């Protein structure tokens, strides 16, 4: 337990160091500060100075945690900061549910369960850090520390584009969840797009009063029927090929409901 407590200042310190540096020097975050929930809290004009102020606070706490000596006060300061994060997330979730939190850089995702889990994990670690005493860090302890850091990183949507998106792309490439279907089945939408481009449709479209009434395939052609006021418009489009000029049309004086 002593060992785990001794580990926490380093984990939290490194995480806060990263958060503080991003807030002070991240160009994208500054550009998008107006869209974060913090802008809602302090006003858009004060969003960038507020981010800077929080960044300085985070760096100060990070420096205190990472540099000797180890004092309970440092853990308490980190606990205060993390409790503030959690309160801010709750506010963001209620007041600006579509805004991002801006915690660790710019991204467009609103506050979700992962954000809360990360803030909760940080808060728990900070509370444990209050009891941190100097303790030799051995390999098993280092593994625990790395696992904790990895959990914090996995809970950060800011980093998704670096690992989650490539991982999902790889899985999609391997599993092919949307593999190409059999080519003999031509969806109606394919024919309709060809129809919309055709001189036949363009010349008749002003007369059409309904959407597609009937469709059937015959002799390599697809017949599409529309209502045209008191008349009926019937188009014949080739099932294969993409030449819009091959589409034919006839307007027929026949009640559409005959």
């Amino acid at each position: 337990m002593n060992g785990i407590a001794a580990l926490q200042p380093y984990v939290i310190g490194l995480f806060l160091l990263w958060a503080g540096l991003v807030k002070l020097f991240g160009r994208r975050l500054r550009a998008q500060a107006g869209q974060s929930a913090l802008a809602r809290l302090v006003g858009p004009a004060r969003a960038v100075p507020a981010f800077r102020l929080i960044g300085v606070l985070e760096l100060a706490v990070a420096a205190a945690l990472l540099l000797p000596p180890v004092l309970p006060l440092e853990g308490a300061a980190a606990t205060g900061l993390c409790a503030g994060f959690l309160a801010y997330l709750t506010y963001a979730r209620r007041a600006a549910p579509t805004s991002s939190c801006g915690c660790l850089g710019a991204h467009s995702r609103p506050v979700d369960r992962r954000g809360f889990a990360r803030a909760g994990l940080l808060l728990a670690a900070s509370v444990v850090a209050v009891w941190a005493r100097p303790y030799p860090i051995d390999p098993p302890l280092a593994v625990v520390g790395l696992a904790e850091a990895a959990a914090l990183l996995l809970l950060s949507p800011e980093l998704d584009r670096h690992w989650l998106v490539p991982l999902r792309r790889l899985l999609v490439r391997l599993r092919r969840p949307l593999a190409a279907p059999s080519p003999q089945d031509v969806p109606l939408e394919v024919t309709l797009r060809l129809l919309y481009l055709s001189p036949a449709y363009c010349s008749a479209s002003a007369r059409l009063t309904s959407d597609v009434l009937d469709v059937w395939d015959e002799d390599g052609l697809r017949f599409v029927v529309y209502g045209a006021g008191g008349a009926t418009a019937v188009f014949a489009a080739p099932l294969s090929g993409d030449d819009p000029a091959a589409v034919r049309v006839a307007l027929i004086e026949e009640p559409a409901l005959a």
Partner: protein
Amino acid sequence: MTSRRQVLKSAVLGGGAGVLAATALGSLGPEAAFGAAAPGVAPGAPDPDFAEGRIRSVKDNTLFVLGSNMVFHRIRVVDGTSLWKLGPVAFDQAKPGDGLYARGVRMPDGVLAAESVWLNIVNVKGHVRNITSEKLHLDHNGQEILCHRVAGKSVAVYSDAPPSADLSLLRVGQHVQVLGAWRPDTNQVDIATVFSPH
């Protein structure tokens, strides 16, 4: 039905009785295009010939629809009315709970005689968060929308290319626009067309 189809087929392919205008290939004459009257609706005024809302009940051939502005509509569907629900469908596919847009002619008694009804049609934009079996997970302003591919119906339009039934070129992380049919009271959509910028 078959005999009517034969009449229509022979009309478009070779002319026949009752044909007003037809083309062997190419377009009709300009008189066909100018045959329709311009809509007589003042800008900003509600269009009396249009209705939207969700179906509360269905009785005989009439849909009772409550609009999103709490205006109640009665919409009559006849044989000449087109119904869309991920494609042309029969009237029995219109169910209570379905959302709809309808266009037609307003009768003196207030009933909208529908020419076209589109059921549950939606148009959403978002980022592809993930792709799993036959599904796109769309991130639409932070909300997840599950878009299902429907075999034989769903197509993808990549940039300016002709549509294709092959959706496998879509990538995780890219931006798409999905035209489809909403599954009422869920966050799920059946894809009609998915537009990809590349």
